[in-house]
């Protein structure tokens, strides 16, 4: 499977019996990658990097954390105050969660812009959505662990959503809680699952990469690799590019950790959980806000819950809802604009999710929700039929090679952004 020649006899012997070395060489060194990937393609590997950071910091946090309603809050504060560099580990983990979502959201929007979800990458896209769902579950349960006011009330509100389902709703909620309210059994099971799920995500990332290496990376032009000139080996070209990306990202990430560690947090979560006192304004973490806005846009509880889940389920069908034959928005003049309208709609939903459900926020949430679904269910199917895409370049190499043919005229892109 690999062009690798192992000179060391012992290693060659081992590799014949378990081809770890040639497999890693095949997928981490040789892997033919389109040579025109821009910096938006850095975010997948960055997300993988953050996953590792989260797992490592999490393991060390668990060494000092106590999952009990009467001890959890103070055990976190002990980490902050008495554990050597505990504040650093905890702030890395806390801000790492927000970073993970920032990177994954950029990764998803990059995917939408360049049409990476289209054939033959549908399964790759599905695995990505499942990773996203797992991340949301993990982040939600992790937020409960410090057992602050927002932990407790966030958990109460979100688990209560399941009570919207007729007949089975109430029993499901009781089953989730392990009792008749969010309490110690809830905290314990969330802790257990919060430790388990990241390893599930890790396995899913492996599957994601497997699928990627089977169908190969998409690229800003959205056309397939046709000749060997179109691709370059992953190492050293993309290993160094990813390392540079990690350096830039770390500076962004650590600026929050060292100078604004509570920027993404809610002050209320520094108040120990109190079932007798409801905070005036219960808000989920920022990365859930667009979905929270969709949930509240519907006057009916069950309708809201279904629509919220539907907002993610619809993504699974996107490869078929999008009827355009062209992948990249670079060659889709209308989609290129509507993509940004959709992006703005998502940001607007996020803004509305952080506001109380009153006044003009309510109709605005409803309008933004309608647009969210219309983008997928109406605009995407119709666009492919009516839009006149620009001419595609003959190959990835064509637009950059001098005199690469008339087809390059439409591609005003800079596929070889040298930064």
């Amino acid at each position: 499977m690999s062009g690798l020649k192992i000179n060391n006899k012992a290693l060659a012997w081992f590799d014949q019996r378990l081809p770890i070395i040639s497999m890693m060489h095949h997928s981490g060194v040789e892997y033919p990658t389109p040579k025109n990937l821009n910096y938006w393609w850095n975010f997948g590997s960055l997300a993988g990097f953050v996953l590792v950071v989260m797992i490592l910091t999490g393991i060390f946090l668990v060494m000092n954390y106590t999952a009990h309603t009467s001890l959890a809050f103070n055990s976190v504060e002990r980490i902050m105050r008495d554990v050597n560099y505990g504040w650093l580990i905890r702030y890395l983990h806390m801000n790492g969660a927000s970073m993970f979502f920032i990177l994954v959201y950029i990764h998803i929007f990059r995917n939408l812009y360049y049409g990476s979800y289209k054939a033959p990458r549908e399964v790759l896209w599905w695995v990505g959505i499942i990773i996203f769902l797992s991340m949301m579950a993990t982040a939600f349960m992790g937020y409960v662990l410090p057992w602050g006011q927002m932990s407790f009330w966030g958990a109460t509100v979100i688990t209560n959503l399941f009570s919207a389902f007729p007949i089975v709703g109430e029993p499901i909620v009781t089953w989730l809680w392990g009792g008749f309210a969010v309490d110690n059994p809830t905290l314990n099971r969330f802790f257990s699952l919060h430790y388990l799920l990241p390893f599930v995500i890790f396995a899913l990332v492996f599957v994601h990469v497997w699928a990627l290496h089977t169908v190969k990376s998409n690229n800003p032009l959205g056309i397939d690799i046709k000749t060997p000139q179109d691709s370059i080996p992953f190492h050293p070209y993309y290993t160094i590019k990813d390392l540079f990306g990690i350096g830039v990202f770390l500076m962004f990430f650590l600026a929050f950790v060292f100078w604004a560690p509570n920027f993404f947090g809610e002050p209320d979560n520094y108040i120990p959980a109190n079932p007798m006192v409801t905070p005036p304004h219960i808000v989920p973490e920022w990365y859930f806000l667009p979905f929270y806005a969709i949930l509240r846009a519907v006057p009916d509880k069950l309708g809201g819950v279904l629509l919220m889940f539907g907002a993610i389920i619809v993504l699974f069908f996107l490869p078929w809802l999008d009827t355009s034959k062209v992948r990249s928005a670079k060659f889709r003049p209308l989609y290129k604009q509507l993509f940004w309208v959709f992006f703005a709609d998502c940001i607007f939903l996020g803004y509305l999710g952080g506001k109380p459900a009153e006044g003009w926020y309510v109709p605005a949430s409803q309008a933004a929700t309608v647009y969210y679904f219309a983008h997928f269910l109406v605009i995407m199917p119709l666009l492919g039929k009516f839009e006149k895409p620009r001419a595609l370049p003959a190959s990835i190499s064509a637009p950059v090679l001098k005199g690469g043919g008339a087809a390059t005229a439409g591609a005003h892109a800079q596929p070889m952004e040298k930064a």
Partner: protein
Amino acid sequence: MRKLIISALVAAGLVAASGAAQAAGGGAPLLTEKWSWEGLFGRYDQAQLRRGYTVFHDVCSNCHSLSLVAYRNLAAVGLTEEEIKTVAAEREIADAPNDEGMVLMRPGRASDKYISPFPNDKAAAAANMGALPPDLSLMAKARLGGPNYIYSLMLGYKDEVPEGAEIPEGKFYNTYFPGHAISMPPQVMDDLVSYADGTAATKEQIAKDITAFLNWAAEPELDERKSLGLKVMIFLAVLTALFYALKRQIWKDVH
């Protein structure tokens, strides 16, 4: 690359705007002060922490607990070992059962957490007309506006209740408290305490100093955090520049 930088700036702007929008959610705009620990190079002012501790010890600690701070931690605000032992011994705490199984009281030690003025929350509420004085360990992180909120609250009392505001018997009007009716009587006034370092104890000065102390209590790691941050950033800047140079070098033949 240019596009990416522009996008990053736009994103940063959006995040900042949403943060500002959230911060603006609660009542009257807070009084703001320039705190010594703010900014890239911000550090606590040792003399101020010490003054703030004087205020906490003489005034706040009569009703409020500070349960996450140990007496030994007070070395960071400038107390000597002897002073720490003396302060700790001012209050008593239940000892472990002795050999006869009796639970006796013993004076506090440097290793104890700051001993609460009341044996439990019920006792604390009962002694304060039913209102439980909150623990102050995390106050600077647990309120919107953080230190500015504490500072504003200290100075936000009004003797005359503005028209239209209903303040129940036994409560006080405070401009910055959510709902305005606060159970804590006004505390800060000129010459409430006398500072060992000779600083004039105006009410603004006292409010500033207690705010600094409470911010330290909530974020004792701040000085270490920011100084480590600078070192890490310088290291990362060099490392990333090298990565970038290497990237240019490796990619120079790809067209």
